[in-house]
C-alpha cells in the first residue's frame, strides 16, 4: 500500500546523499553528478511505475482490498509527481 511513497522517500534521501557525495569528491556543479541524479530519479520513477502496474494488474478485490488498492494507486501517482517535481532542480 505504501510502495510508491516508500520509493518517493528513498528518492529524496538518495538525492541528498548523491549531492553530498558530489560535494565531497568533486563539485555539486559538475555535470556528472547531475546525470547521476537524473539517472537515479528515472530509476525511482520506473520503480514506481512497476509498483503501480503490479498493483493494477492484480485481480480487483472487494471490500478492504479495494480500498487499499485505491490508496496504493493514488499514493503511487502522488509519488511519481513528487519525484518528477524534485528532479527539476537538476535542470538549473
Amino acid at each position, binding site marked *: 500500500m505504501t510502495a510508491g511513497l516508500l520509493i518517493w522517500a528513498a528518492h529524496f534521501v538518495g538525492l541528498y546523499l548523491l549531492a553530498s557525495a558530489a560535494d565531497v569528491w568533486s563539485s555539486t556543479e559538475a555535470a556528472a*553528478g547531475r546525470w547521476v541524479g537524473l539517472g537515479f530519479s528515472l530509476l525511482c520513477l520506473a520503480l514506481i511505475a512497476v509498483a503501480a502496474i503490479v498493483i493494477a494488474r492484480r485481480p480487483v478485490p*472487494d471490500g478492504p482490498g479495494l480500498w487499499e488498492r485505491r*490508496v496504493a494507486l493514488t499514493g503511487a501517482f*502522488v509519488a511519481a509527481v513528487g519525484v518528477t517535481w524534485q528532479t527539476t532542480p537538476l535542470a538549473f
Partner: protein
Amino acid sequence: MTSETGFDVRKYDRFPTEGSRPDGELEQLEAAWCGPRRPGEWITAINNNIIGVYYVGAAMLFFVLAGVLALLMRTQLALPMTGFLPQETYNQIFTMHGTVMMFLFAVPAVEALGVLLLPQMLGARDLPFPRLGAYAFWAYLIGGLAFFCSLFFGLAPDGGWFMYPPLTGMTYSPGINADFWLLGIGFIEISAIAGAIEIIVGVLKTRAPGMTLDKLPVFPWAMLIFACMIIIAFPSVILATLLLELERALGWPFFDPLKGGDPMLWQHLFWFFGHPEVYIIFLPAAGAMSTIIPAMARTRLVGQPLVVMAMLATGFISFGVWAHHMFTTGMPQISINYFSAASMAVSVPAGVQVFAWIATIAAGKMRFSTPGLFAVGGLIIFVMGGLTGVMVAMVPFDWQAHDSYFIVAHLHYVLIGGMVFPMFAAIYYWLPMSSVRPLSERMGKWIFWLMFAGHNIAFMPMHLTGLMGMPRRVYTYLPGRGWDLPNFISTIGAFLFGLAVLLWVIDMIRNFRPFGPREAGNIHDGPGLEWLPSGYYSVRSVPVVKSLYPLWEQKGLAKEVEEGRWFLPGAAGGERQTLVTSPLNAEPQYVLRLPRPSPWHVFGAVFTAGFFLILTIQAYAVAVVSGVLAIYCIMRWCWFLDAPHNRKTTDIGAGIRMPNYVSGPSSHGWWAMVIVLIVGGMVCLLAGFSYVFLWSRRPDLWQASPAMASLMLHLGVLALAGLCAAVAPRMLRRARTGAETLATALLVVSAVGAATAVGLELRAWWSAGLKPDATSQGAAVFALLGWAGAFAGIGVLMGLYILLRRAFGRLSADRPSTVDLIGLFLAYTAGQAAMVLLLIRLFPGAGP
C-alpha cells in the same frame, strides 16, 4: 473477503447473540476492571481512562505554564527598551517557552489524546501495554516538572529551543543549564517513544473484529502514522542530545571544528527530528479534525481514502525537508534546491486534507457549536500558516526572513492552527466522554472568539515586524524603527489569548467532573465506537464493525453492545482481557490478559527520572544508585509477565474459543520488541551517518584502523552470539528435558559474547592510539561502540534476568515469549555490533 489468519469470518454472523446473558457476568466484568478504591491506587492505576485523563491534564498544565512564559516575553517586548525582564532571564524564558511547548505540550498532548481515546475508538478494553503507558506518563510528568522547575533556580537552558552548538558548547554555556535541556529532553523523548510503541501495537493489534483498514477511523490512522514517525524521528534527537552531552561532559569533539567536529552535524540531526516533529504534532490534530468535522457537519468525510493517503504521504515527505531550516548555512546549492522543492511539495498532501475538510463542511450541515468553531478556526489559521510556509520554502525569500519575526509568525500560525485549535476542538468534542458534565457552550464560544482574535492580533503583526527586520530572540529593541506599534499590538493579542485560556481553565474547573458513575454521553451525535456506553472496562462487549461510521449505520449497536451481545462480554476467570486481532483485517487471534495495577512502574519512572536529572547536577554516584533502582523496579514489573494461564482458551462469545497465549510474530510482545529494535537501529543508522559526515569534514585528521586480523576474531564472536540467540527459542520449543536450561545457557552465552566482542573492539582502537577526546574520529568511533556496548550491556542484564527466571522455575516450553523476545534482542545486538565494526574498520579505508 480472503481471510488473513484462517479465522472464518462467517462466524461474525452469529452476532449479536440472543437470549439472556449469564447472571453475574456484568458484575464480574466490573469487578475485574474496578477503579481505584484507596488514595494510593489513583497513583498506581494503569487503566487508560484514568491515565489518559491525567496525561491530557498534565499536557494542558504545561501548555498553561509555557503560555505564562509567553506573556512574560510579550510584556517585555510591548515597548522598546523595557526592563521588565533581565536579558539572561529572557533568554531562559524564550528557551523554556519553545521547549515546553514543543516537547512537554504538543507531542505529549496528542499522545495523551491517543491513550485516552484509542481503546474506545478501536473497541478494545485498553491498549496492549497499559503499564508501559502509565510508566511513560509518570516519567513525562516527573521529568517535565523537574525540568520546568529549573527556571526557578536560574538553571534553565538559555540556548534557544533548538540548542545550536557552539553556543551550547562548554565554551559559551559553561553552567549546567544546557545539561538540563540535553538530559531532560533526551529522557522525555524516551517516554514519548514508549507511548508510541503502545499506540502502534494498539492500533494494529487491538481493533474490534471487522475493523479492516478501510473501516479504521481517521483519528487512529493519524495516530498510527504519528507513532511510526516518532519511532523514526525521535532517535535523531536522542542521538543529538547524547553527542552534545558527551562533548560537554567528556570533551568528545563532535561539534568542535578544531578537532574535526562540525556544528552542522547538530543541525542535521536536530532538524531530522525537528521538522518531522511539526507533522508529528499536526497529523493527530488533523486526524481529530477529520473526525470532528464530519460529526459536526453530520455527513461522511469527503475523500476519506485520499485523506488517509495524504496523511501517509505527509509522514513520508516530512523526512525529506529537514534541511529547509538550514538554507542559510552554506549547504551546496543543489541540496538547497532539492529541499526547497520538497518543502513546496508538502503543500500537496496538506492541501488534500484541507480541501477534504472544506468539501465536508460544504456537503453537510455544519453545526457551529464550540468544537465546530475551533475546527473551522483552526483550518483558517493553518491555511494562513501554510501559505507563509510556501513563501519561506522559496530560498531567496527565506534568506531575507530567516531568524526574523516573520518566522515566529509563520511557525505560530502553523502550530496554533494545526495543533492548538484542533486540540481545543477535541477537548470540547470528546470531553463529554470522560466527564459527567460537558463544558459550557456559552463560555466555549467566548473562549473561541477571544482565542481566534487574540491569535491574529498577536501574530499577524509579527509578519510585519519580521519584514521590517526585527530578529527573533532579542530581549529588547531601540525605539524609532517602526517596531514599536506592531509589538504593542502583538502584546495585546497575546493577553487576549491568555484571557481565553484563563476562561477555559475556569470552564474546566466549573464543569469537568471525571471518573463519575456515568458520562455526559454522545451529545454531538458522533458516529465512532468511542461514543458507545462505557465504563473502566471500555465497552461492555466488543462489536463487529461493519462501517466507518458504526453508530450512524449499524442501528441498535449501542443497545446490543451494552447488553453484552457481542465479543468478550465478560471477564472470564476475573481477568482483565482484551481481544487481539490481526493487523490488516482485524480477525480475532487470541485473548490478551492485561496486567493489574502495581507500584513498580511508578517507582521505575521515579528512579529513571532521578537517574537522568541527578546526572545533570553531576552527582554521579547518586545517579548510578537511582539507575540501579530503576532497573530493579523494571525487572520486578517484568517478573510477573509471561505467567502461566489456568485455561488454554477463552469463550469470546457465541461459542467461539480463542487461545489465551500466543508467541512469535503473532504476539503483541513480539511487535513491541521489533519496534524497540527499529528505534535502536535508527539511532545506530544516524550515528553511522554522523561518522561519515564527520569524516567528510576533516578526512586529514583520520587515522588507520587496527589490524584486520582482530576484526575477524571479533566478528566471529559476534556471529556465535547471534547464532546462540537465534537457536535458543527453537531449543526451548523442542520441549525436551533440560530445554529451559539449554535455552538459558544459549542466551547467556550470546549476551556475554556480544559484550566481549564490543569490549575487545574498544581495546583494539584504544591500543591503536585513538582517543575519544582527541579527534572527531575518536569521538565517533567510541560513540558507535558505546551504542553497541549499551545494547550488549542491556543484553547482559537480560541474561541475568533469564537466569533468575530459570532458577525460580518461571521458564517453560509452553510459554516461550520471554525467550523469544530476549533471543530477538540479542540477535539484533550481535547484528548491530557487527555492522558497527564493519563501518568503523572498512570506512574510509581498511587498516594494515
